[in-house]
């Protein structure tokens, strides 16, 4: 696959968000920074993309997890944890909820500036590790 060859140098980010606006904003902003973007509207589809392409980072909007879809969430958690992919969770997570070390949370409604900066930092870190 061509993007697998490219992924040696070009980092990719998977965005799982039901909002077309959010996907477009993140895509436009990150592509300007030389990042390759993968998109999914639903968590299930996002999980498939994550398994196939091993992105450098995953952005997950919690609203894409359907009611009763805890299993999908768990598989996404373990998939990203095992592949050491940072997972940025967008949504309202209770402070008491335990977070895995590779996860970070951005509470809604958020500002895009800080979110993009956070993604940039995480990408820079994973580049160093690689």
């Amino acid at each position, binding site marked *: 696959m061509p993007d697998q060859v490219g992924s040696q140098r070009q980092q990719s980010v998977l965005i799982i968000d039901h909002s077309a606006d959010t996907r477009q904003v993140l895509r*436009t902003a990150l592509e300007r920074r030389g990042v390759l973007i993968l998109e999914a509207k639903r968590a299930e589809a996002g999980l498939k993309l994550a398994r196939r392409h091993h992105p450098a980072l995953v952005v997950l909007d919690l609203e894409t997890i359907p009611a009763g879809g805890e299993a999908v969430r768990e598989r996404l958690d373990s998939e990203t944890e095992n592949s050491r992919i940072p997972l940025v969770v967008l949504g309202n997570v209770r402070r008491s909820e335990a977070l895995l070390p590779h996860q970070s949370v951005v509470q809604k409604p958020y500002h895009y500036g800080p979110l993009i900066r956070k993604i940039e930092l995480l990408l820079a870190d994973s580049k160093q590790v690689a």
Partner: protein
Amino acid sequence: MASLFVIRGSDQGTRIELEDGALTIGRDKSNGIQLHDTEVSRKHVEIHCEKSKCSICDLNSSNGTFMNGERVEAAQLQSGDRLQVGRTLMIFTGGDESDQRGLASLVNIVGDQHSGGDSRIVQSLSQQEGSSLIDDIHASTSPWLARARSNLQIMYRTALAVSHTLDIDQLLNRILEMIFEWVEADRGCIMLLNQATDELEPKARRTRRGSTDEKINLSRRILDYVMNHKEGVLTSDASDDRRWDPGGSVVQMGVREAICVPMQGRYGIVGIVYIDTFTPPGQILEHGVTRKFHEEHLKLMIAIGHQAALAIEDTSYYSAMVQAERLAAVGQTIATLSHHIKNILQGIRGGSYLIQEGLKGDEPEVVRKGWGIVEKNQEKISNLVMDMLTFSKERDPEVTEANLNRVTADVVELMQIHSQDANVQLIWRPAEQMPRLTFDPDGLHRAILNVVTNAIDACDGCESGQVEVSTKFDAEAGHALIRVVDNGVGIGPNDLKKVFVIFESQKGGRGTGLGLSVSQKIMQEHGGEIEVTSTLGEGSCFVLRLPAVLCEGSEQALSPATRVPE
């Protein structure tokens, strides 16, 4: 089934059904009943139910468990009991299914031929005549019997008054009125205990002489006695014998007698009833001191107070329930709207961020993308506001002459971009014959817009999604129809019942749950309706029916097809 209803606290309005078995109440998730109350312990109290008989057992909670205001370790629950844990107050209602089953076997309704046949109706009386038993007070020769009848009558009438009203003020005034008919009181008042401040507040007053501005001074000492001892008192300022001599204050000042009784309900005292009477000095000199209030009056007043208290408790329980339900509805409204507004805000922030980035890097393409997103969300918020205004009664329909084909075409044109974005084909088939009709064009625009928006959303993600909008005029049936047919996801039979229910969105996070309720409201305001048929996986068909109110001159413009055959 037995249940607990939360009437105070952060979970106000919640009803918890109690199934057989044990269940714990507490603050954390592991409990069968989780209360969002910081004063509730993690595991606070256990409820054990068997055949709708329930008992509670405190689990060493730090703040204790209270039943009807008293701290308990363990107790049996009776219907109407108030259970308080932390700041949460619940009312227990016992189930009585088992009792009903038991009763059914003991009480039978049988036909005449099986009843032994020797029972017949000897006399019948209407319900109103129930009181005639005790109406005829003076017919009796025995004064004791006459008094007893009179007492029974006032209790009967109190019971009637109590059962006939849900308005507390009205009830209190009625009770005072009856007391005045029955006993020679000059002044009376009812004070209720304010639960929040624990102070007695006057709620109703009555004076015989009609001087409404006459002040009633109640002695704090007597009130405290009544409240603390939960006893009624009969007082007289002539009871002090030392003052009773011709030169004493009583003869000069007259005698005031009073009765003050607690209003004792199921759970505690809800207030007091007070009456007094005054014998002027002149009368005392003429007839000597004659007491007007006696022990019997006191006893009866206590009974009346009890009846009134029960009614007041029921009424406040009822209004607490109404209030709780209203709060729950308001909470749901706010939650839904803020979720939707949050999503719009997120969109506007995204668009603004792109504009900023684009301006910084001098990239007009990025600016344009950002601007597109801002505009789209601006449209969303405008639609939301219009839907809210239509749903509230802020906006009255403005009926005027208009062309339904034109109005529908406007909607289709407006939705073209949205449907292209969603990769859905939007087809428009206007009726060939459409007379000018009288309706609210802005209202119809909104009604059609919401239905078309939903149809496009229903096709989102479908292959070769298609929405067809058509109009039809039926002169014979006297209506115009707007049909919106899509080949999208369809609606299941259970959800179909809920499509017009406000805040029931099938679109997950994207819908406000306002759109179709608003469309339906607009059509109903026009005397029309919306019909929907749908098959899951195949698509839906919405038909908006608008009763045709023809404009002057439209008769001639009617379709030639209906006129030519003459």
